């Protein structure tokens, strides 16, 4: 289901990214009506914006990507028959965000070998981190400093409260990978926090 949807989506045009866009399949559009599209997908606007904002770390880019994603979604809406409109929309937002990240050469993907589960150090002074655990600004900064894959998975889990299964669908990875990636993301976040707290002292 996810694969088919994202396939449909990636075939659609892309206006803000310049070349590569081709004309949408008009007949598929006509069958659906704007109102039902809006009813199904506009309630997830906050979720879409939040994910794009975390991925792109820039408000203007986030808004452009969300608008673009809604247009793409609209063009392939008739191809969508699933029940989870939010997951479908977020998949498109994610793919659109990555396209822009790649185009901007601001690519901070790190390729991870998901099979090798590297356990982050249990820190010598975990208490120190926890004392600072409520420092919202520091945690936000730490999350922003992580690679896109990690920002994405943390936003989907901690902010949208999505299940591993839904995250797997959106990030297009096996469900088992979700757990190891989350573990790595949180481990990296912890390392960053530890380093920062160490430095501030």
């Amino acid at each position, binding site marked *: 289901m996810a694969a088919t949807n994202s396939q449909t989506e990636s075939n659609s045009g892309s206006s803000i990214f310049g070349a590569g866009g081709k004309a949408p399949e*008009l007949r598929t559009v006509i069958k659906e009506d704007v109102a039902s599209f809006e009813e199904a997908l506009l309630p997830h606007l*906050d979720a879409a914006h939040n994910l794009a904002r975390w991925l792109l770390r820039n408000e203007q880019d986030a808004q452009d990507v969300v608008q673009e994603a809604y*247009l793409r979604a609209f063009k392939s809406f008739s191809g969508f028959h699933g029940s989870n409109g939010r997951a479908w929309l977020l998949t498109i937002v994610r793919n659109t965000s990555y396209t822009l990240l790649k185009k901007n050469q601001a690519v901070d993907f790190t390729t991870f070998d998901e099979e090798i589960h590297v356990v982050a150090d249990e820190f010598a002074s975990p208490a120190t981190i926890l004392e600072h655990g409520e420092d919202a600004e520091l945690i936000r900064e730490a999350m922003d400093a992580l690679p896109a894959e990690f920002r994405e998975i943390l*936003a989907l889990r901690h*902010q949208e*409260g999505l*299940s591993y299964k839904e995250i797997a669908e959106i990030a297009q990875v096996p469900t088992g990978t979700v*757990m190891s990636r*989350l573990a790595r993301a949180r481990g990296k976040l912890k390392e960053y926090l530890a380093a920062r707290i160490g430095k501030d002292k």
Partner: protein
Amino acid sequence: MNCEEATKLKDGYLDGELDPITSQTIEQHLRECPKCDQAYKIHGSLIRAIGNATPYYKAPAELRERIQSSLREEIAELPTRNFARDAQPLFPRRQSRPRPILWETSWNWLALAAAIIFAAIIALTLVPRLQRPGADQFLATQLISSHVRSLMASHLTDVASSDQHTVKPWLDTKLDFAPPVVDLSNEGFPLIGGRLDYLDNRPVAALVYGRRKHFINLFVWPAASNESKAPKTITRQGYQLLHWADADFNYWAVSDVNVNDLQTFRQQFETRTPRH
């Protein structure tokens, strides 16, 4: 289970994503291994801290408008010749085309008549059997609309209070029944307030709870004696609906939180509601 396995499953366990048997095996290990137990506790606080501390970037209002107008532009740009093949234009240009060809030949009349008779037979045979799910689907639509409306129109609550002793009396005076109201802050579902709503042809109580950065609307109204008491879940448009009932009341919880959270919410609510 050894420490290595326990460490590997830490995130899955703390996220509530493991099966009950594996979870129990882990709990067993944690009772025996103080080192892992400590590591789980620390990781748990980190997980909570991430959830609490990171901002949720809500979409600004103008983005919604931008999207809506871009969709309309998109429609306007569609060449009209494409409409000829597929019957229904999105925005019918008023009177610009003749009525559809349904009226052109008598053959179509026959086909139409046959279709109506066929549909009637199907309906008469199947409808009694399908009635319950159909009614549920209709109710589900009403519930989701009500949930979405409550979040959109800044009319989440009529009485905003985390104190169950404020919300309950307020609702009691407005309704012809007295719904149970409990604050579940300690269980991670703080009570935000209450609201009157109208569903299933009757006034109902809507209790509003928070979950991380999301909301849960819990609709409550008296249960009819012949209704199914079996809990059920429905997923629609990315929303989760969870229904259960006790001797007195029907409950429908609606939210965009995941289904596990909603199940936990129900358990906590039931635990805290006095038995009848």
